[in-house]
């Protein structure tokens, strides 16, 4: 059987020195793939807007999304540093709390450790209000 080789995620950029830095840093982590997805979106939008520099990117990241924001920032900055338009771009991350709504008492309450149990009626809730967000809101650019 000949396996289909999909290659490392970051090989999409076809940048050998980038690959070397990342494998040196042993970054085979969740946040790297997320950072690559952000990079792809921003790189494409920056080109559409004829941006000469992207100054900042604002994200909304839910508390329950499992993202370590320091790692995400680290991975994104490393990827961005190899692109002249994105180098130095700041990631601004708004954290959204993990919240649920109780069907019985209609109150919103914070979900602790993924257990959506209403502190008032002790019943489980199916209605997660927030906390799973992984969104790019906007970017701030300089354009020619």
């Amino acid at each position, binding site marked *: *059987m000949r*396996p289909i080789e999909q290659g*490392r995620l970051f090989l999409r950029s076809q940048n050998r020195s980038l690959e070397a830095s990342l494998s040196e840093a042993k970054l085979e982590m969740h946040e790297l*793939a997320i950072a690559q997805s*952000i990079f792809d*979106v921003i790189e494409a*939008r920056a080109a559409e807007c004829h941006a000469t520099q992207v100054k900042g990117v604002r994200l909304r990241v839910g508390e329950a999304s499992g993202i370590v924001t320091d790692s995400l920032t680290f991975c994104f900055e490393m990827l961005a540093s190899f692109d002249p338009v994105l180098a130095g771009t700041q990631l601004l991350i708004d954290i959204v709390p993990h919240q649920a709504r109780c069907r019985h008492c209609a109150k919103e309450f914070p979900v602790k450790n993924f257990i959506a149990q209403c502190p008032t009626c002790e019943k489980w809730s199916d209605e997660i209000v927030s906390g799973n967000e992984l969104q*790019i809101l906007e970017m701030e650019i300089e354009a020619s």
Partner: protein
Amino acid sequence: MPKVTIAQNILAANETIAQEIQRSLAARGICTINVMSSPGAGKTTLLERTIARLSGRLSIGVIEGDIETSADAERIEATGAETVQINTKGACHLEAHMIRDALEHIELNRINLLVIENIGNLVCPSAWNLGEDIRVVVMSTTDGDDKPAKYPQMFAASQVMIVNKLDLLPYVDFDLVKAKQQALAINPHLQIFEMSCRTGEGLDAWCDWLVAFARGNGLVPGEA
């Protein structure tokens, strides 16, 4: 300095491909499950035993995800199932575009159930939709009973939990009641199967459920 509104899900590109996959498989009447676990919990053995037991009842195609080697795909191929191996070369999870490519190597008109065996990892795969109808998380008695509490995203995002290696229960400090309680506290809708793929204990209940699932066009049996 101009601000440009983007308002886009970070994983939107993956999500779009996953939805295309789900639509095209559903149109062919194929149900799809995405099987995830920590390394060594027994995903491949589960698939071998499941395929053998369902021979004649379901035609199963398998996409095997591994960082390196085609060892698992060779094991699955030996069962006679349509099999494709994806080697991610370091990436810790499968993404939808990999599944789209792999599907070109499967005779889709020969199967009615597609099983995707994800990379052994309880963190990353949970974030990436592959176009599956349901997600199955496998944990084993040698993993430790604290896995649901430690990796809650995975258990929150799954519909089925399998506890494997039940035959080893007398030899390990694994509290089955605690593991199930933790998992159900995170996800009260989890359908739980306890089994030993080695001895075959508990496999029939899972296989019957899977047949009901595949014949119900991807609806979770027992749910309206």
